C-alpha cells in the first residue's frame, strides 16, 4: 500500500513542511487568477520559492489552472504555462481544454492532470484523456466505489487520482449568487471569499458550505467525505493518487488528517482506529462516505 501517493492542499508556505512531515507526497497550490476552489491561493511571485521549498521537503508541487478561460485571458494563460514549464512543476490541474491544447503545444502534456470534477465517470472517457498523453485524470466524486474499481481495472490505474477526503463540490456557477442576493435584499455588504457561510434548504436541516469569489459561486456537500475504510481497496486497485482536500480546514487540521491516512497506508493503524481518531479530532464535523455506496438514479 505504500505506493499510494497522498496529495493535499496547503494554505500557507509554512504548511509545506508540516504537511510533508505528516506524510503528504504532493501538494496542490492555487494561484490567482488561474485557480478556483483552492484551499490556498498564492501569488505568482511566490511560485519559485514554493518549488524550492517543495524540493527541499521532497514533495511534488502541482498547480491548479482549473478555471474556465475567456478568449481575452488566453494570452495570460499561455504565459503562465510557460512559467510553470520553466519552474518544472510536477503537475498542472486543468478543466478547460484550452490548457490541454496549449500544454500540448508547449511540450508539457505529461504534466497535465485533468480534473473536470463531474465529467469523469467511466473508463472510456478516462482512456480518451489518458490517450492524449496527460499525466493523470481525477475521477468524479459522484460515482460508486464499485464503479471506481471497475474504471481502475480498465485504465492504467497508476494514472488515476481520486479525492478521498474533504467537502465535495456540489455546484459551480459563474454567477455571483451571494452578492446578488444581498443586493436583492438591499443590504450593503459583501460576502465574497468568506469561508464561514452555509445554506440550508427551506424544508431540511442540513447545511452546505457556500463560497463566492470573483470566479463565481461554489456550493459544497453537507458532509466531509472520508475514505478510511476504503483506502485499502483503492490502493490495491493500483490507484496512484489520493487527495485530501482542505478548502474549509486549517493547515493544522489537514495535517492531522494526512497523518491518519499516512499511518493507515503504512499499516501502522487499521481503518477502524483511523476513523475513530478522525472522529475524535473532529467531533462536530459531519462526515460520510460520499457516493461510494449510494448509486444515483437516472430518473426524476
Amino acid at each position, binding site marked *: 500500500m505504500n505506493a499510494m501517493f497522498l496529495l493535499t492542499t496547503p494554505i500557507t508556505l509554512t504548511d509545506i513542511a508540516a504537511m510533508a512531515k505528516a506524510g503528504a507526497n504532493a501538494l496542490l497550490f492555487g494561484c490567482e487568477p488561474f485557480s478556483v476552489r483552492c484551499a490556498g491561493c498564492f501569488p505568482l511571485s511566490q511560485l519559485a520559492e514554493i518549488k524550492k521549498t517543495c524540493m527541499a521537503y521532497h514533495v511534488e508541487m502541482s498547480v491548479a489552472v482549473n478555471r474556465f478561460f475567456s*478568449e481575452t485571458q488566453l494570452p495570460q494563460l499561455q504565459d503562465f504555462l510557460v512559467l510553470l514549464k520553466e519552474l518544472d512543476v510536477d503537475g498542472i490541474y486543468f*478543466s*478547460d481544454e484550452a490548457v490541454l491544447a496549449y500544454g500540448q503545444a508547449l511540450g508539457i502534456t505529461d504534466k497535465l492532470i485533468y480534473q473536470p470534477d*463531474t465529467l469523469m465517470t*467511466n473508463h472510456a472517457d478516462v482512456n480518451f484523456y489518458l490517450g492524449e498523453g496527460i499525466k493523470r485524470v481525477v475521477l468524479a466524486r459522484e460515482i460508486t466505489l464499485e464503479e471506481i474499481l471497475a474504471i481502475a481495472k480498465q485504465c492504467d490505474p497508476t494514472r488515476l487520482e481520486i479525492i478521498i477526503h474533504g467537502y465535495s463540490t456540489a455546484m459551480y456557477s459563474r454567477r455571483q449568487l451571494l452578492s446578488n442576493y444581498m443586493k436583492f435584499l438591499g443590504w450593503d455588504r459583501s460576502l465574497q471569499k468568506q469561508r464561514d457561510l452555509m445554506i*440550508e*434548504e427551506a424544508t431540511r436541516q442540513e447545511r*452546505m458550505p457556500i463560497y463566492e469569489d470573483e470566479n463565481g459561486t461554489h456550493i459544497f456537500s453537507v458532509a466531509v467525505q472520508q475514505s478510511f475504510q476504503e483506502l485499502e481497496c483503492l490502493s490495491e486497485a493500483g490507484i496512484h493518487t489520493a487527495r485530501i482536500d482542505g478548502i474549509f480546514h486549517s493547515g493544522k487540521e489537514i495535517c492531522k488528517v494526512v497523518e491518519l491516512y499516512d499511518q493507515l497506508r503504512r499499516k501502522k493503524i487499521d481503518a477502524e482506529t483511523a476513523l475513530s481518531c478522525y472522529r475524535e479530532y473532529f467531533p462536530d464535523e459531519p462526515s460520510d462516505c460520499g457516493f461510494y455506496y449510494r448509486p444515483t438514479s437516472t430518473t426524476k
Partner: protein
Amino acid sequence: MAKIELLAPAGDLHRLKTAVRYGADAVYIGGKQFSLRSRAGNFSLEEIAEGVRFAKEYHANVHTTVNMLPHEEDLKGLEDYLKALEDIGVKAIICASPAMMQCAKRVAPKLEVHVSTQHSITNSAAVNYWKVHGADRVVLARELTLEQLAATCSGSELPLEVFIHGGMCVSYSGRCMLSNHMTLRDANRGGCAQSCRWKYRLYEAGKAIHDEERLFSMSSKDLIGARFLPELIRLGIASVKIEGRMKSAYYIATLVHTYRMMIDEINEKGTITQATMNEYCEQLMKAENRPTASGFYEGLPDESKHLYGVNGAGISKEYIADVLAYDEAKQLATLQVRNRFEPGTMAEVFAPHQASQTFQIQEIMDEDGLRLEAANQPMRIVKIKTDIKMVKYAMIRKVIERDARYSE
C-alpha cells in the same frame, strides 16, 4: 455566409412536427437511451425515424442528444444505437462524453458530432481542440458575454451554436451535482431535480443572515436573447438554440414562429428596426410563463436576472385553441379548445410563416351548431365565426396585458 440555423427543442413527435411546421431549421430531441431530460418524453428509434421523415419534407434536420455522462453500466449498446441513428438519417448528435464522440466517428461517420455545452467551452483554443478530435460543431457555454462570444468566434475553426432563448442552468452546465447530493437523482444522467430552484436559508458562522420572507434562491430568469440576434448573425454563429424539450407545443410554436420571422427579416433587410424588434419581443413574451432576462449577453448577471420570491413555475393560460379547419365560404373556423374562452375574448391567431392577426371572438358553437356560453372543456371541438382566413395548425391565444414583472 451560411444562413443561421434556428434549432428548436421537441419532447415528442407532436412537438417536433409543430417546431418544423413553424419554421425550425432543425429540431433536437432525446432518444430513450443516452440522453438527459428523462421527463421530456424522449423518442423511440421508430419515433425518431418518423420525425426525420417529417423534417425532411420541410428540408429540416433532426439532431439527437446523446449527452448523458455515462457511468460504466451506461455504455452498453452505444455502437448499435449510434449506427441506428445514422441509418435513420439523424443529422447530428449532441455529445458530452468524448468516448461517445469517438465511438460515433468510428461506427457512424455520417453523424455530425456537436460538443455539448456541458463542456463549458468559453474560448477558441478549446473549440479548436475539439476540431482536432473530429467534432463538427461546438455548443458554447452560456456564460459568455456578447463581447466574449465575438472574440471566441474570431479564433474558432468550427461552427458555433449558442443559446438564444429558454430556461438556464444557474451553474456551468454539467458542473452541478446539487441534485445528486440532495436527492440522489443524477443531474448528468437525466435525473436533475432542479434543486437550484428551491429556497434556502443562509448562515454566516452559524448565525442566520437571510430574510425569512425572501429566502436565498439560485433560480435564474429564463433567457431571452432576441435583441442580440442581429449581432449573432453578423458574427457568423452557425446556430441559435431554443432550450426546452419539456415545454409545450404552444411554447415552441410561439418562439419558433417569431424567431423564424426575425431571422428571415434580418437576412432579407440586413437589420431590424427598434420598433420591429420590440414587436417581436412582445410576441416572444406570449410564450413565457416565467420572467425573462438577457442571461450573460450583456455581462455578468446581477440580481435583476434572478428569480427571488417569484414562483417560477406558473402556468400560462394565454393559449386557448388549435385551428383544425377553416371554411372560407361560411367563414367558419373549427377549433380544438385548449383553455377557456368566451364570446368577446380578444384573441390573436398565428400560423407557420404568417404574421399574427388580432380579432375578437364572437359567437361560439358546438359541433352541432348550438350556441355555447363559453368554450370551457379542454380538447372539445367548437366552431367560431370569423372572416380571418385561418389555416390548419394555426394556434389562437388570448390578448393579455402582461405584468411588467415578467420581463426585465
